[in-house]
């Protein structure tokens, strides 16, 4: 490796320029969230006098919604992994009859528009009394996470040496034991990836929040933001402060799970 030459640094400058254009909206969100609210019509280009009233308003008005989103997202992660991990194992390791059909169904399910699912779920939820409930939203939101998690975890388990599991089986471990004490620990990384993405999907869900809640009792933050911007907005700093708070999971995912993202993106996309 030689030290990067001037030409290489030139590319870096160019890349930073592209990045600056692409990330301007993110900068603008943070900038606007730090401006004093209310009367000023023009937001200044730089937050020279950072003001946190926007955040105070955001937390007092949307804090409960943020907690609701957090509860739903965590619930969805637990449910999705509990359902997806055994299925992924079965699809990767056993030669189950009908596995092809299950995989095909997962593939096709990704193409069904959310509005079609919401339309049917609304009427069913209405009958079952699941509208405006956290379990109802956890169940619905897992529709983003479960198929994705199955594909990600299975792709990983495909590469797991069969001999390890076989050894455990020979030693007399039942299927459940082998799964729980061998397969799950070995697949930790793929479970984390799937869990992080499921969290992000659920946290970002807007459609089910919009259609399956009708009162203020259960209100995820995405719907809170929608209602903020739906009314005539005169307090953008609070809206942007809420937007920043709602972006935190994405930022954490980007920073903490850097090496898993590429795997997740391609695994999820080129299914």
């Amino acid at each position: 490796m030689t030290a990067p030459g001037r030409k290489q640094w030139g590319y870096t400058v160019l890349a930073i320029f592209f990045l600056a254009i692409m990330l301007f909206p993110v900068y603008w969100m943070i900038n606007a969230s730090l401006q004093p609210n209310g009367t000023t019509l023009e937001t200044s280009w730089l937050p020279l006098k950072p003001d946190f009233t926007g955040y105070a308003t955001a937390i007092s008005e949307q804090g409960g919604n943020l907690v609701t989103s957090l509860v739903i997202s965590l619930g969805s992660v637990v449910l999705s992994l509990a359902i997806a991990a055994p299925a992924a194992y079965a699809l990767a390791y056993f030669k189950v009859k009908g596995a092809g059909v299950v995989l095909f169904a997962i593939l096709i399910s990704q193409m069904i528009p959310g509005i079609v699912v919401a339309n049917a779920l609304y009427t069913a939820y209405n009958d079952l009394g699941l509208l405006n409930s956290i379990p109802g939203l956890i169940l619905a939101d897992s529709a983003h996470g479960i198929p994705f998690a199955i594909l990600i975890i299975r792709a990983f388990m495909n590469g797991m040496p069969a001999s390890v599991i076989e050894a455990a089986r020979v030693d007399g471990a039942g299927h459940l034991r082998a799964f729980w004490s061998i397969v799950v620990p070995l697949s930790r990384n793929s479970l984390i990836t799937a869990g992080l993405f499921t969290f992000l999907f659920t946290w970002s869900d807007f459609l089910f929040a919009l259609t399956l809640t009708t009162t203020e009792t259960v209100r995820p933050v995405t719907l809170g933001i929608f209602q903020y911007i739906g009314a005539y907005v005169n307090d953008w700093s609070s809206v942007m402060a809420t937007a920043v708070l709602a972006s935190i999971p994405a930022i954490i995912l980007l920073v903490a799970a850097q090496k898993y993202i590429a795997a997740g993106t391609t695994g999820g996309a080129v299914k």
Partner: protein
Amino acid sequence: MSLTTDLSQAKSRASQRTKARAKSGSENTPSGEARPSRRNRKRRERLFQWLFLVPAVTYMALFFGYPVVKNIVMSFQDYTTATFFTGEAPWVGLANYAKVLSSSLFSTSLVNTALFTLGSILGQFVIGLALAIFFQRKFPLNGILRSLLLLPWLLPLIVSSAVWRWILDKDSGALNRFLGELHIVNTGVPWLTSTSLALIAVVGVNIWIGIPFNLTILYGGLQEIPDELYEAGSLDGATGWKAFRHITWPMLRPVVSVVLVLGVVYTLKVLDIILGLTNGGPANSTQTIATQSYDLSFHEFKFGEGAALGNVLVVISLVFAVLYLRASRRSVDE
């Protein structure tokens, strides 16, 4: 990484396993002489294996299978708010479809959906590919800068909508102020409130959201192309544009088809961005099939008509899904 490869991998692994078992010879009996107890054990084994799949299959049936079937049934019924009280949803045959498809709004939505999808995909793909090629160069901080570019894709869509709504605001939005300071425009451009500009603005925002996805997948595809090809190409004088046309593009084709078709299927069902930016307005100028289906069901409470329109969207998506499956199979065979 597709269905077919994985299945063939699974098959070959399974056959290895049986071979290994045959070698060890411990419990290998010719299949013709299988004893009943062994057959029972095998059946029990099968049952256990299925138990791992049962929760997932049940979930998929309830949250994908049921909605699809229910939507088909509802689309033939006069299903309204009254149904919730009376429990009655009279059969109306094809009336919902006739009504939805013949309404003037449908042609508007169909054209908007086509423009929205085509414009978004074209913009995302071209810019994504250009950036992917750019980031193939080796330069300091490449990895960090490339991963920071993912951020627009990871943000909740409604957050992006809110931010863009503020940037595109006619009076105090950052874009108009920027253009004003450069003296490109004198008065505020009504990006989201003019019937002629709103769709363009919405497409622009959706392009911004889709660039990271395209960049990531295409960059991955580019990495797979062996360097030797370019070395050999450069000996034959194929550099720059020529190398792209004769080496990069043909080698990238399978990934390209997957990106494009997935992009189409995802873009067709976009709802968050449009509802967040314009709510379908002004005067339906950004209304798509997805938003119109939402409107019919959840604003007008004509669930039957909403279901009919939703099914139209499913059929359109399925056409592309078939294309996708064929594309991904070809990409494996090649």
